[in-house]
């Protein structure tokens, strides 16, 4: 099966409840006082009219400022946030690395977390048992693998998390800032691994603030700004566009406006 992602005129409205789940007291009192504030929700569009078509073989990079909607876009594609309007159609098995170490249980050992995390990413337990050795080898955590992960350093944590995703070989890999932790050596190593994964996976979507990585790894790039795709095209051009047209403007924008979209 050939993997594909079709996003057509998708809008994503965030509802920021002032109080997402009111307590009984607040519920009753709010009702009595007709306190709009307590019950109300502020709404804003995190993503506006997104049209995107990603086919097998595509390596899509997403660049943009903080709060531009990059992560929201990824989360919409994964299905965490259903689009408010429009459609998102994804064909193929998705593995997402939104935040390193999601699904890690701090009390469990590294080895147990490999199993837990792998199964959360849709692998069978048996498969994870088979891949376990490869994960440990890649992460270079041989001596520490049976320690609870709460004793791990941030770098070790990140290495383990990346290594799990690295051996799974998903059809569609969606990754958000996955090189943020780890030392230069491990980043280099995982970067090379990513290149290899790019051959195994049909689709990769990568969010990164490292523009050189984006240029090197991706064949298509979109620039997202304030919830919209403002430009799309080949990596080098987009990175230049981003550096010349978006970044300088950001400084001039009001600080309040800038923070509005950073919920996700």
């Amino acid at each position, binding site marked *: 099966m050939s993997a594909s992602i079709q996003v057509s005129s998708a*809008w994503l*409205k*965030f*509802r920021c*409840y002032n109080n*997402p*789940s*009111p*307590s*009984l*007291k607040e*519920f009753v009192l709010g009702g009595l006082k007709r306190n709009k504030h307590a019950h109300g929700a502020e*709404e804003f*569009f995190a993503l*506006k*009219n*997104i*049209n*995107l*078509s990603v*086919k097998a073989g*595509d390596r899509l990079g997403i660049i943009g400022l903080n709060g531009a909607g990059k992560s929201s876009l990824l*989360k919409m594609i*994964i*299905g*965490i*946030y*259903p689009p*408010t*309007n*429009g*459609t998102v159609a994804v064909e193929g098995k*998705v593995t*997402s690395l*939104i*935040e390193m170490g*999601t*699904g890690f*249980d701090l*009390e469990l050992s590294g080895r*147990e977390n490999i*199993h*837990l995390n792998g*199964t*959360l*990413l*849709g692998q*069978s*337990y048996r498969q*994870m048992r088979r891949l376990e050795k490869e994960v440990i080898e890649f992460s270079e955590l041989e001596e520490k693998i049976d320690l609870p992960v709460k004793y791990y350093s941030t770098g070790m944590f990140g290495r383990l998390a990346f290594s799990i995703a690295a051996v799974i070989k998903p059809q569609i890999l969606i990754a958000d800032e996955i090189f943020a932790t780890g030392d230069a050596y491990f980043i280099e190593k995982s970067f090379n691994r990513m290149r290899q994964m790019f051959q195994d996976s049909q689709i990769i979507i990568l969010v990164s603030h490292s523009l050189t990585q984006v240029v090197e790894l991706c064949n*298509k790039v*979109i620039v997202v700004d304030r919830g*919209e*795709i*403002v*430009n*799309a095209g080949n990596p080098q051009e987009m990175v230049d566009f981003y550096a010349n*047209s*978006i970044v300088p*403007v950001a400084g001039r924008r009001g600080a309040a406006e800038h923070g509005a979209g950073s919920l996700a």
Partner: protein
Amino acid sequence: MPIVHELQEAKRAQESDSWATVSLAEVGATVCVLDTQMASGTYPCSETAGAFLLRTVKELDAVKFALGAFVFNALRRRYHNSVLGFAWSLLNPLLTMSVMALMFSLIFHRNPQQFAVYLFAGMLPWTFILESVMSGSTALTSFESFLKKIYLPKAFFPLVVVCIAAANFGFSLVSLGLLGLAVGMPVSSSLLLVPVATIILFIFNCGLALLFAIATLYLRDLTHIASVTLGALFYTMPVVYPIEQIPAQYSWIYLSDPFYHFLLLFKTIIYESRQPSLRQWAIASSIAGITMVASLALLKWKEKDIIYRL
């Protein structure tokens, strides 16, 4: 409106085979005509009940290994670092309820051995229900970090907590079996019906857990309200005291309690060593069925809102 036209024209201007549409050509332009374009809060993709059910089952099937891992880890962690380890899962219910059996048999002047079995047969399914509701009500809120970072079907964590409760129930059943053998309870063929009753109770508990998990997102106090209410309900049912203590004209009180019909199944099978009547089966199954359907209906209705309520 003019901005909409501009937007549409910008779209049209794109080549038809373009893979990503730039929604606005100029950086910095704002769209402020959203309300005219869509009715807020309505999702275009409405699903039939059958499609919803099929999708939910498929999604849960995809993460069944994770379900196993969660349940296994939770159980293992509970007795982690303790000297007796897993033995506690058998000892704990046994000892707790032996104390209760001793106390209440003294109060009601009963044969402690027989009364222990009577008590266990009611207490075990009740504990299963209670645990499902209590941990079910926090099943979505306490796993927020997962739900916001990976796509998991919303029924996943309620199912996880019920499976954990079911495992505890299983251990307690084994304890009860050991106790029954020790006090010389007759082993009857009706005991073969325990798994059937357990399946019905499991379905009921899954429904309850899902209902409470979603409802708690809209009213946080529900956890506390449920805890107090269920605690009070417990004493309306003849579990810790003999059924004869309730005058016949008040039997409607516990008979109108949906939970009691599940306890009754286990009591009939385990304590009375006979097959429950068809009517008993029918009542329990329909309560379980209705609860399950109601919870799925609630899930279908609120599924897309859940993530924003966390």
